[in-house]
């Protein structure tokens, strides 16, 4: 069936339940009505909303899409996205928002890791889900979270039990198969990392085909005491792909969350990465590299909420903007009244490779405590002319010199990737990209 998002908003949830054959699972159903009401009340944000001022999704929201279309994709089709030398990994694959068991492999023992499609998890771990699912991302204030909650079915459920370190990386592939139709897809994910537990999650976002896709991804992450989660995202979709990607992270005592978000493609990509440092001595590290080109737009909104004392956060987002593209960085740091001895650092640096590229950057810092160390800042500019001349005077073409300098600019984000296979995969993608650009 085909519909646009406005059809959904104007519909009745009872009708949708039937039409979309939504699950009657009580955990999902419990929140569905409320989330749907909230969605109707909020409406989808437009550029009139302050938080969406520079992020115009109207082309995406007005279009009619097919939902949950079947796919004929095989692992051979997906081989082009493989990360060489990654070794064994737990792989979950979603095509157009639907979990594909035949394209997924779990290698870690079940004592170390529970991982499954959300639907299956509802049956296996009802208590964990009922206590955590929909509890972190706020569907009363955020329309895309409300949409995700109301129609939740598929997504990744991860639970790492107390004291377990998952050795193999968890690779989640979100593929849009738009070879024949325009598709709308959602994924609703929940990652739970237990006490003293540890895991690495790599998310890949790719497109196959030339039609339009719209992905609404919501991930809730809860870290227990002393848990460590490293979360890499590679967004490399087509120019006809639209994505809203919301990640809500809750950190308990001494836990560490580190994210590296690399956005190389997508027509409009909106990332909301929100972390709440909800206990003492927690740490959040948010790093990002975004490289829009052509007419595309990449918008990174982040929130670091220091709710408790003695926590650290580090944030660095780097943008490389070509052609007529637009970049947005909006970083909010809150340091609450109780959050004494906070160390919070934030920086956004952007290189504009073209006169027609635009960056809208807004670093924000709101401090209500008095004994803190915080800094924030943003810079934007062109490539250093002196550096270009230096390299050219050694025989490098202007193009080589430029790509070398851009590469160098991006390096400190890539250095944050501790998985060597992923790092060289990213290096290759970026090098290829720089070599094909003028």
């Amino acid at each position, binding site marked *: 069936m085909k519909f646009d998002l406005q059809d959904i908003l104007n519909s009745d949830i009872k009708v949708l339940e039937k039409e979309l054959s939504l699950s009657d699972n009580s955990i999902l159903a419990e929140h569905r009505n409320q989330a749907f009401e909230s969605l109707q009340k909020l409406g989808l944000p437009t550029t009139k909303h302050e938080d969406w001022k520079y992020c115009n999704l109207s082309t995406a929201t007005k279009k009619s899409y097919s939902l949950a279309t079947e796919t004929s994709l095989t692992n051979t089709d997906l081989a082009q996205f493989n990360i060489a030398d990654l070794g064994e990994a737990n792989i979950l694959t979603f095509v157009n928002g639907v979990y594909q068991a035949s394209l997924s492999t779990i290698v870690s023992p079940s004592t170390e890791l529970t991982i499954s499609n959300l639907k299956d998890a509802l049956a296996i771990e009802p208590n964990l889900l009922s206590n955590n699912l929909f509890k972190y991302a706020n569907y009363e204030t955020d329309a895309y979270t409300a949409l995700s909650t109301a129609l939740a079915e598929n997504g990744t459920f991860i639970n790492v039990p107390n004291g377990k370190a998952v050795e193999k990386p968890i690779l989640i592939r979100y593929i849009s198969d738009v070879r024949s139709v325009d598709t709308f897809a959602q994924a609703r994910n929940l990652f739970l990392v237990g006490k003293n537990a540890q895991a690495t999650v790599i998310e890949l976002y790719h497109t196959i085909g030339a039609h339009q896709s719209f992905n609404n991804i919501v991930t809730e992450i809860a870290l227990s005491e002393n848990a460590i989660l490293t979360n890499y995202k590679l967004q490399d979709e087509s120019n006809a792909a639209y994505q809203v990607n919301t990640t809500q992270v809750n950190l308990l005592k001494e836990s560490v969350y580190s994210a590296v978000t690399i956005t190389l493609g997508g027509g409009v990509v909106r990332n909301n990465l929100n972390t709440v440092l909800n206990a003492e001595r927690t740490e959040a590290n948010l790093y990002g590299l975004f490289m829009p080109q052509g007419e595309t737009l990449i918008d990174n909104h982040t929130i670091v909420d220091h709710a408790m004392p003695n926590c650290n956060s580090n944030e660095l987002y780097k943008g490389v903007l070509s052609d007529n593209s637009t970049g947005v960085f909006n970083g909010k740091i809150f340091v609450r009244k109780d959050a004494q001895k906070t160390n919070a650092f934030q920086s956004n640096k952007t290189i504009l490779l073209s006169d027609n590229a635009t960056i809208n950057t807004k670093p924000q810092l709101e401090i209500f405590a008095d004994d803190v160390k915080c800094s924030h800042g943003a810079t934007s500019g062109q490539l250093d002319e002196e550096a270009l*001349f230096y*390299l050219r*005077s*050694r*025989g490098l*073409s202007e193009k080589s010199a430029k790509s070398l*300098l851009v590469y160098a600019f991006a390096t400190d984000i890539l250095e944050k990737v501790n998985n060597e296979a992923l790092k060289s995969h990213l290096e290759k993608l970026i090098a290829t990209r720089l070599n094909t650009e003028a």
Partner: protein
Amino acid sequence: MLSINNLRASIGEKEILKGLNLEVKPGEVHAIMGPNGAGKSTLSSVLAGRSDYEVTAGEVTFMGKDLLELSAEDRAREGVFLAFQYPIEIPGVSTTNFLKTAINEIRKYRGQDPLDAVSFLNLMKQKMKSVNIDQALLSRSLNEGFSGGEKKRNEVFQMAMLEPKLAILDETDSGLDIDALRIVANGVNQLKNENNAFIVVTHYQRLLDYIVPDFVHVLYNGRIVKSGPKELALELEAKGYDWIKEEVDGVKA
């Protein structure tokens, strides 16, 4: 090899080179000396192709080609090398990293096959010895946190790697202690042969004790106003530039 004829160049509204002439033949070392503001660095920059300067008149022929027509990179590929007075820092780019690209782009321009990794490393090792530079330095971000001496040695190392036909050393001696100066000069002298040439731009005679010039030219007010053998450098060192200024300005007046 290099023939500069009536070269005039400006930056913005200000004319800096005002009709400069210079002939350089293979195997020669030319020293260009002169007071501050005479146009020494402008000459280096114009020859290397820095775009801040506008050439308003004159010709520069290098190996039979119109040098001014060539882009900065093509000048390098034809065999011109500039050792920078103030080598710039480039975070994230190591010397090893960009030199490999540079050498292979130069080789491609000359119709040669690219150097493989092993040959490149062997070449590096050999040249590292000649300027007494450490591998660790070459793997670090270019010039970032380098001492003055390290920066200049790195310039001479790059020169050794690229084996230019014409090397221009722009005040390579500034800020160097005597040991660093010897190392730099030694690197230049090892490279010197009957097929290449050097233009050594300097404020002080000191460097010329180690890199012995065939000719010394005095650049003043945008022109070469006096040329002579290497002894001229000693005379300038002893007497300063005032007598030259008087001679030139006196004639003008």
